[in-house]
């Protein structure tokens, strides 16, 4: 690795520290009777509402369709995720210090795999909330599930549900992008380096 790639990798790792302080993902519900919207933010270690009472109110509405209440304390991923990100930060910083090219590749691949695993896990939770409904729910519509979109916007009964990364999520994307950039720069630098040693 050249010095620029090492710097980018270090920066990418340090950027991830911000994800502890900013939400990764947001889910928003808007309906005629909720013009102000109900919001839910997913952080590395917790789920919060847009206001103090949004989660309470989302759960209150969910009971009509028999959706399980969202209880952040009961979601094990939120206990593990801080360590996973911590690992990525430590791994990235260590790789930047050691400067071994293989470590840079390993970091980016690990990041991509963890990201895919994270999204898959998020999809699984969404699927479970949306499909695994209380058979005694007051409102039952045959064939309709209430799974929120993984990314995007979807009409669920009267609610327009949208799911998008939030600031923390975009920072993670930027961090990964910096990882790829580090690889690209490293490759280019080593090629021109080779060219230079060629005899004229």
């Amino acid at each position, binding site marked *: 690795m050249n010095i620029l790639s090492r710097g980018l990798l270090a920066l990418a790792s340090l950027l991830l520290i911000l994800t502890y302080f900013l939400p990764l993902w947001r889910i928003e519900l808007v309906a005629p009777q909720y013009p102000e919207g109900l919001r839910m933010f997913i952080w590395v270690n917790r789920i919060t509402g847009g206001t*103090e*009472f949004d989660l309470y*109110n989302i759960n*209150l509405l969910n009971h*009509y369709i028999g959706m399980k209440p969202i209880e952040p304390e009961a979601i094990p991923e939120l206990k593990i995720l801080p360590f996973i990100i911590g690992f990525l930060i430590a791994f990235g910083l260590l790789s930047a210090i050691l400067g071994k090219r293989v470590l840079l590749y390993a970091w980016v691949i690990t990041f991509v795999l963890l990201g895919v695993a994270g999204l898959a896990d998020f999809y699984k939770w969404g699927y479970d909330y949306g499909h695994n409904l209380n058979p005694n729910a007051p*409102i039952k519509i045959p064939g309709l599930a209430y799974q929120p979109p993984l990314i995007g916007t979807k009409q669920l009964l009267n609610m327009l549900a949208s799911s998008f990364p939030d600031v923390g999520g975009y920072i993670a994307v930027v961090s990964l992008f910096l990882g790829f950039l580090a690889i690209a720069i490293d490759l280019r630098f080593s090629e021109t380096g080779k060219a230079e040693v060629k005899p004229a």
Partner: protein
Amino acid sequence: MLGKKKVLLGGLSALVVGSLLAGCPPKKEALKTSAVGTDAASKVYVPPGKHDEFYVFFSGGFNGQVTVYGIPSGRILKVIKVFSVDPETGYGFTPETRPMLMTSHGFIPWDDTHHPWLSQTNGEHDGRWLFINANNTPRIARIDLTTFETTEIIEIPNSAGNHPSPYGTENTEYVVAGTRFSVPVPQKDVPIDSYAQNFKGTISFIKANEPGKMDVAFQILMPGFNYDLARCGRGPSHGWCFFTSYNTEQAHTLLEINASKNDKDYIAAINWKRAEECLSQGRFQEVPAVYYHNYYDEKKHMAVSEVKKSVKMINPKDCPGVAYLLPTPKSPHGVDVSDDGEYIVGGGKLATVIPIHSFSKMLKAIEQKAFEKEIDGVPVLKYDAVLHCEVEKPCLGPLHTEFDGKGFAYTSCFVSSEVVKYDYKGCKVVDRVPTYYSVGHLLIPGGDTKKPYGKYLVAMNKITKDRQLPVGPELLQSAQLYDISGEKMQLIHEFFTIGEPHYAQAIPADKIKDKIKKIYPLAENEHPYAVKAEKDARVERKGNEVHVYMTMIRSHFVPDNIEGIRVGDTVYFHVTNLEQDWDIPHGFAVKGSEEAEILVMPGQTKTLVWKPKAPGVYPFYCTDFCSALHQEMQGYVRVSPAGSNVPLRYYTGTPTTQK
């Protein structure tokens, strides 16, 4: 006989109007049409979903309430219950709110509200509170502008007909109360024709700047006149309040004639800073008096009453400089201080001129002892020494004045049904516009502050025949909205008001709307009977009292089945609304309730008291359409005969029996 008299009076007043308005009697057609400009609609159109520019608070007169409208649209926003019980929310019925309406005369569920007054800081509206008077059984209420609910009421002792009230000082140090009817002070059994010798007036200053601590700070014993309206000074005149009086003749019967004899009555000028000095020097008497102070605690969701036993009374004889009388023609109603604090405009309802006093001249006259005489220890200043000018031929029956901040005053004229605009320094009428009909007070947003907004004027009309679809002998009063931003006043809108609005106050919406409370946080609910989780809901018997600790949330009650109630029991449904979402109250009503329903706001606890009279099964239900399953939000109470031993049992879903 009566008919003849009316015709005569009518003819006479038309003649006077004619001569006053330089031989130009209004044509019948001019009275009928409203002369609205073609662009009027666009000036008042607020599209659906958009907000109005100003909140307006109208007094409800004989309904004891306050009605809130938006202008310019004239859309109604809320009816605030103040001195009247409300079967819709349970105000005045529930044990939590009954103390609010307690007085030394007992529980009084009605009054006559006349003058709303918005709290001020540094002479400008601050959007914290609205105060309003009870005219009949003298009281002053505080309305909290985060909830638009009545949170405090204080009774005024030694007063009768709390009319010049509750105008306040520029930092809301005090709101004032004056007695409309002079009475024996303290009350006693005397012949009515001993009025001149036994009857006295009082003017009260009520400490108002701390919620929960309203108190009659002091009273001033005044000559036995009728005190009518008031206004406190600002800027240079801060420290003074002014009160109009009529019946300086001290008549006690047929006042229509007997109190209309004097060419001049008085504006009483009270120096409350001087009164504070006298209080600190001990120049007052502690007079026994029984009066109530009631306060609603928003965290306990509960009102409490305290009974006060005495009041500090200042006799002007013992505290020179505390009160002066300014001669003012004739039976003055309004007494209004200009935005710069210098001019005091009297509205002599039987006068043919509008007298304008000068505050600085008044101070000078006091200094030079330009006194005409003294009444009960109160010096009467010489009219010419305090007068700035008289506005000549303004209109008939000038009542009340507000200011636009641009050097103009606007006075309502009851008899000639119009508003006149004049330059109050130059003493010259510049415009006039008809009202439909018989205007009482008028309002300019901020028109009683240091910084009037000067854009709109609202006329509050007493009589509205032919202005709306007829609905029987009684018609609503009207509010007419005028654009006063230009040189000429222009009528742009008309809407109808509830009760008999006497006065109104308006404030820019931006000063309030972001401070509005949307819910009561459940975590802060300190009501002694609140239950904050369904698992804590329960029913407890204490002798003949049964306390139901109930919760409500979309779309069920916990418990929704209750058994073991007996005829002869008093059942207290203490119902907590577990919702924490704006605009989601739930109602609670039970069959055969002799009182009200209760409408419980999110996070609030209220109690409905119910005494079942016969065995049976009684339904209760939610009355406020709350959700798709609102109709399913219901339950049953089983009532067994007196003395039966049906066990107490309650549940929602899975039955459980009380341990």
